[in-house]
C-alpha cells in the first residue's frame, strides 16, 4: 500500500470545475448554494462541508498584449483547492471520538458513522477545510476518495480532470514531479512559479501539494500553517499553574481562617 497524494498544478487548470462536479457526483455531496459572491467568477468562495473540491479564480488586471499563461504576467489563474491531508493533521489530533483517522494511503478520513458533530476539528484546522454541516450536524471534508483508493481507483477529481492539472500518485514521486515542473516553468520564463508544500512548519508537509504562480497567499494558502497541538504544552502548563493556585489558595484561605463562619 503506497502513500498517495494530490499535486494540483494551477498552471494547467482551465477552471472547468469538472473536479468539483465529479467530487459531488461520486461522494453525493449536497449543493453548496446558488449565490453570487460579487467578487469574481468564483461563487463558492472556499472549501467546506458541501464543497470538497473548490476551484479558485485568481484574476489579475490584464496587461495589453499579453494573454494566457505567459511568463511576464498571468492574467487569470485557476487553482483547484482541496483538503491538504496534513502529515500532522490538526483535525485528526483534536477529534475526541476517534472518528478522524489516518488511512493506509496517508489521507485523513472522517468516519461519518462515528462523528458526533462536536465541531472541535473545525477550530483546529489551520487551512479552514473541515466544516460542520448545520443540517446534518456532522463534520465533513474531502475523503481523499478512500472508497475508490481501496479498490485501486484514483480519486474522482483527478480522474475527471481533463488537463491533468490534478495529478494523483505516490507522494514522493509527486514531490519530485512538482520540483521538476517548477524548474520547467522557470525555464519557460514563469519565474514566479512555486511549489506549496509546508514541510518546514509543524504541519510537516501535506498530501495535497500545489504548483502556483506568485504569492501562495493570493490563493488563501497560509505561509505558516501550524498544527494546534504545538500550543498544548503552554496551555496545559498554564492549566497546572491554575490548578495549583486554586488548590494552594483555597487551602491557605481556609487554614488561616479556622474560626470562620461558626
Amino acid at each position, binding site marked *: 500500500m503506497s502513500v498517495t497524494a494530490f499535486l494540483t498544478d494551477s498552471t494547467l487548470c482551465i477552471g472547468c470545475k469538472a473536479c468539483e462536479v465529479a467530487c459531488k457526483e461520486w461522494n453525493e455531496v449536497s449543493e453548496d448554494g446558488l449565490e453570487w459572491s460579487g467578487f469574481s467568477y468564483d461563487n463558492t468562495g472556499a472549501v467546506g462541508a458541501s464543497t470538497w473540491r473548490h476551484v479558485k479564480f485568481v484574476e489579475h488586471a490584464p496587461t495589453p498584449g499579453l494573454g494566457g499563461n505567459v511568463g511576464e504576467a498571468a492574467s487569470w489563474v485557476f487553482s483547484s483547492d482541496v483538503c491538504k491531508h496534513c502529515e500532522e493533521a490538526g483535525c485528526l489530533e483534536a477529534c475526541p471520538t476517534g472518528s478522524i483517522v489516518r488511512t493506509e494511503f496517508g489521507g485523513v478520513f472522517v468516519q461519518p458513522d462515528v*462523528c458526533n458533530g462536536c465541531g472541535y476539528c473545525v477550530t483546529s484546522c489551520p487551512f479552514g477545510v473541515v466544516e460542520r454541516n448545520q443540517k446534518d450536524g456532522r463534520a465533513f471534508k474531502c475523503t481523499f476518495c478512500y472508497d475508490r483508493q481501496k479498490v485501486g481507483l484514483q480519486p474522482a477529481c483527478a480522474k475527471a480532470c481533463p488537463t491533468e492539472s490534478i495529478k494523483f500518485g505516490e507522494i514522493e514521486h509527486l514531490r519530485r514531479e512538482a520540483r521538476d515542473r517548477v524548474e520547467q516553468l522557470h525555464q519557460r520564463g514563469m519565474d514566479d512559479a512555486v511549489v506549496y508544500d509546508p514541510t518546514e512548519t509543524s504541519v510537516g508537509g501535506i498530501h495535497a501539494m500545489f504548483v502556483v504562480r506568485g504569492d501562495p497567499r493570493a490563493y488563501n494558502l497560509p505561509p505558516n500553517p501550524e498544527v494546534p497541538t504545538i500550543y498544548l504544552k503552554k496551555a496545559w502548563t498554564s492549566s497546572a499553574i491554575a490548578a495549583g493556585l*486554586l488548590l494552594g489558595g483555597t487551602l491557605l484561605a481556609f487554614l488561616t481562617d479556622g474560626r470562620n463562619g461558626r
Partner: protein
Amino acid sequence: MSDAIRISDLQREQRLDEIRRQAEHGQLQVVGVRPAGAPFPQASAANGYYQIPLLKEPPWTWEIPLYFFVGGAAGAAAVIGAIANYTGADRELVQHARWVAAAGSVISPALLIADLGRPERFLAMLRVFKPQSPMSVGVWTLLGFSTGAAAAAFAGFLRARYGPSLPLRVLENAGQAASLAFGLPFSNYTGVLIGATAIPVWNKNAGDLPLHFGMSGLGAAVGILELLGHRKNRALQALGLGAALFEIWEGARIESRSHSHLDPLKHGFSGLVTRTGGVLSGPVPAALRIASLLASRERSSSIRRWASWSSIAGSLITRIAWIQAGHMSARNWRLALEIKDAEDAGAHSADARRSATGKSPNS
C-alpha cells in the same frame, strides 16, 4: 410592454455606440454602473483570496460559553467544598459547595451534549481517550467530576437524612476526593480547549487562557456561595479578592500588549464585551470587597452581595467575550495569511464589512 423593452434596448445600444466612439479616441469618459461595494478586492499577496477568510468560524452555539461558565464555577466550588471539609470549616458551607458542584455536574454535560451536531452520539466520545485532544481529556475530566460531585452531594444528603452508615461514608469521601481531583482541571481546562486551536486570538493566548478561566471560575464559585448566604466567611472573602485581583492583572496584560491578534479583545463589539466582562470580574468586585472589609457588619454583607453578582456576571460575560473574539479572529482574513494591515493600501469597503475586528490604530 414590448415597446418598453425595445426602448430600453435602444438606449443600451446608444450607450454602447457612445462607448465605442470614445474608445476610438483612446479615452473612455463613460463610467459604467458601479455595483454596490465596488471596487472589489483583488486576489493578491496583499489582499489574500479576495479577502475571504481562510479559517472557519467555531461552529459552537450559545451552549458552549455557558458550559465554560458553569464548568468553571462548579469545578472551583467542588474544590472549595472539599478543602472546607478537610479543614473543618462549617458544615453548611461544605454542603452548599457540594450542591453547587452537583448542579454543575448535571448542567455541564447537558449543555455539552446539546451543542453536539449529533447529541445522540455523545457516547462516541467515550470510545477513546486521546491525551493530545483537549476535548477528549475534557470529556473524561467532566465524567470523573460529574460522577464524584454528584456522589458526594447525594451521599451527604442521605447521611443528613437517614443517619451515617459505612457505605454512605465511603461514597461521600470517594466522591469528594474525585470531585476535588477532577475539579481542579475541570475549572480551567476550557482555556486549554480553545487555546490549542487554529484560531489566532485563542492560540496566541494559550498560556493565559487556562489561568484566566480558572480564576474567573473561582470568582463565580465564591460569588454563588456568598449569594447562598456565606457572606461572613473570611476564607471566601480572601478567595474572591484573590480572583478579582488576578482578573485585574489579566485585563491589564491584555490591554497593555498591542498585537493585531489581540484586536478582537479591544475593538468592536467583541472588544466591548471583553472589557465589560473584565471590569465586572476584576476592578468592580475587588473595590467592593475592599470596601466591605472597611464597612460595618451589616453593610459589609450587602456590599459583598454586590461583589458576588459582579463576579458571576463578569465570569459569564468573559466566556461569551472570548468565544465572540474567536469568531472575529477567524473572520480576520489577514491573520492566518500573516498579512500586515499596512500592506493593504486601499481601504476597501468590503474589507470593513468582512473583517469586523476593524483596523487597530496601534498595530
